[in-house]
């Protein structure tokens, strides 16, 4: 590996980034996911944390442009130079530019360049790394198409970036200085419990009339279930749904019956099998399968159809791992792994949650996978976990997804 002359680096751990524009080659959501995944590569092996800004000046400004684009290094049309980025410093320092004359893609096909791979390389420069002459290293100057589904940072790159910033902190990477509230809903150490405590029964009163929808930014907001659905995220509580779409900045407020009139509220768990365009809802000892607005015929079915013993009366939370095609079901302080291909629970389960998900104590209210990371919700907090490195990354308020 190499660094730039004088080894410039960011003198802080909280680095901001902003996506200034998009390539027409890809969905905006795919661009955002590629960039976020690229940042996660680097944050997972350093103490660095990256926060995305939607306006103003960020440390790392990301943009697409062709030919001359305002700096001294014009792009050269299709092929040749794909992108470039500047080492850490003020102004243009850290910025990453991508050549719009290339065909950008989220796949690893051979008729386009995988944006995640190129972005991960360029962000290496934005953090202070130069090129590596180790073939196969991410910082090798020549683009090499490779499978990105379970992409792990090569050791040479880890050595390089840790020479600049050191390894990740042991404890969950909580901000040492809280970012201004509008920038982050991460908790200060004083607030953040180190582990999930046994379920605190929500002290909900039994109101005589239908409970009003809690405020989006209520710091005590809890959820019954959460799932992705065709690129969006749905948060369920009682009969209410909060809908977060990558296409609109606002959170949409709906009721379950507005999507699935025959489904009553109060889901216990929900998850999406993206490859089948199918979402599964759980309530008590039954489950439903829907595709979009359509409930599949023959539902509800008893959860024992999935292989659960009769001792299991309800599911607390469920989440499908798009990488491994396994679904995790959380019941009390244990969890099961379900193979979506064979449609059967895997052997060797149930296992204790705490054994495999660092920092996650007992009950999981809801679970979500987004951009390769897992989010476990318990009470008013969510725990961001990298299951590959089994690392608890940070603890945030549940409603960090609602731009609070």
């Amino acid at each position, binding site marked *: 590996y190499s660094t*730039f002359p004088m080894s410039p680096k960011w003198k802080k751990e909280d680095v901001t980034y902003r996506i200034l524009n998009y390539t027409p080659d890809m969905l905006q959501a795919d661009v955002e996911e590629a960039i976020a995944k690229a940042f996660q590569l680097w944050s997972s092996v350093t103490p660095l944390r990256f926060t995305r800004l939607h306006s103003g000046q960020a440390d790392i400004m990301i943009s697409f442009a062709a030919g001359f684009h305002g700096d001294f290094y014009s792009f050269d049309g299709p092929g040749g130079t794909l992108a470039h980025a500047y080492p850490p410093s003020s102004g243009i320092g850290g910025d990453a530019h991508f050549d719009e004359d290339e065909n950008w893609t989220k796949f690893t096909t051979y008729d386009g360049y995988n944006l995640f791979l190129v972005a991960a390389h360029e962000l290496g420069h934005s953090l202070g790394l130069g090129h590596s*002459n180790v073939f196969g290293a991410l910082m090798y*100057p020549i683009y090499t198409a490779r499978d990105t589904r379970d992409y792990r940072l090569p050791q040479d790159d880890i050595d390089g970036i840790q020479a600049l910033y050191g390894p990740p902190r042991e404890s969950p990477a909580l901000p040492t200085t809280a970012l201004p509230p509008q920038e982050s809903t991460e908790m200060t150490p004083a607030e953040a419990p180190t582990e999930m405590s046994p379920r605190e029964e929500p002290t909900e009163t039994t109101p005589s009339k239908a409970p009003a929808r809690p405020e989006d930014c209520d710091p005590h907001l809890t959820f019954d279930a959460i799932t992705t659905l065709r690129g969006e995220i749905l948060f369920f509580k009682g009969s209410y749904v909060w809908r977060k779409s990558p296409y609109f900045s606002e959170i949409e407020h709906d009721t379950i019956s507005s999507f699935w009139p025959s489904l009553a509220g109060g889901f216990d768990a929900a998850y999406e099998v993206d490859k089948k365009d199918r979402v599964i809802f759980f309530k008590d000892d039954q489950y439903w399968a829907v595709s979009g607005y359509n409930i599949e015929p023959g539902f509800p079915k008893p959860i024992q159809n999935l292989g659960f013993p009769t001792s299991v009366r309800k599911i607390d939370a469920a989440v499908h791992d798009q990488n491994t095609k396994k679904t995790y079901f959380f019941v009390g302080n244990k969890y099961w792994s379900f193979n979506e291909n064979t449609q059967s629970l895997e052997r060797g389960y149930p296992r204790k949650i705490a054994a495999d998900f660092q920092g996650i104590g007992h009950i999981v209210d809801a679970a979500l996978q987004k951009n390769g990371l897992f989010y476990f919700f318990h009470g008013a907090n969510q725990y961001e976990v990298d299951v590959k490195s089994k690392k608890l990354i940070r603890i945030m308020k549940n409603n960090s997804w609602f731009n609070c």
Partner: protein
Amino acid sequence: FPVVPEKEKDMQFAKKYLQNFYDFKEEKDSLFKSKNLNHMADKIREMQSFFGLEVTGELNHKTLDMMKQPRCGIPDIRS
């Protein structure tokens, strides 16, 4: 216009590549053309060494192919 012979075109491409990524500076006013060629041969050696190619200082096929690969715009060697 006269067609630039392939060899000359490759030489131009290589020169630009070495300027972009290996800090090659051609001395425009040098009276001795050979001086520039030696300097360029040194830079070719530097690039061949970086990519683990056989270090010959000559613009052979393998070296030219490597130069034509899609890549990052940041120099490999910088002053």
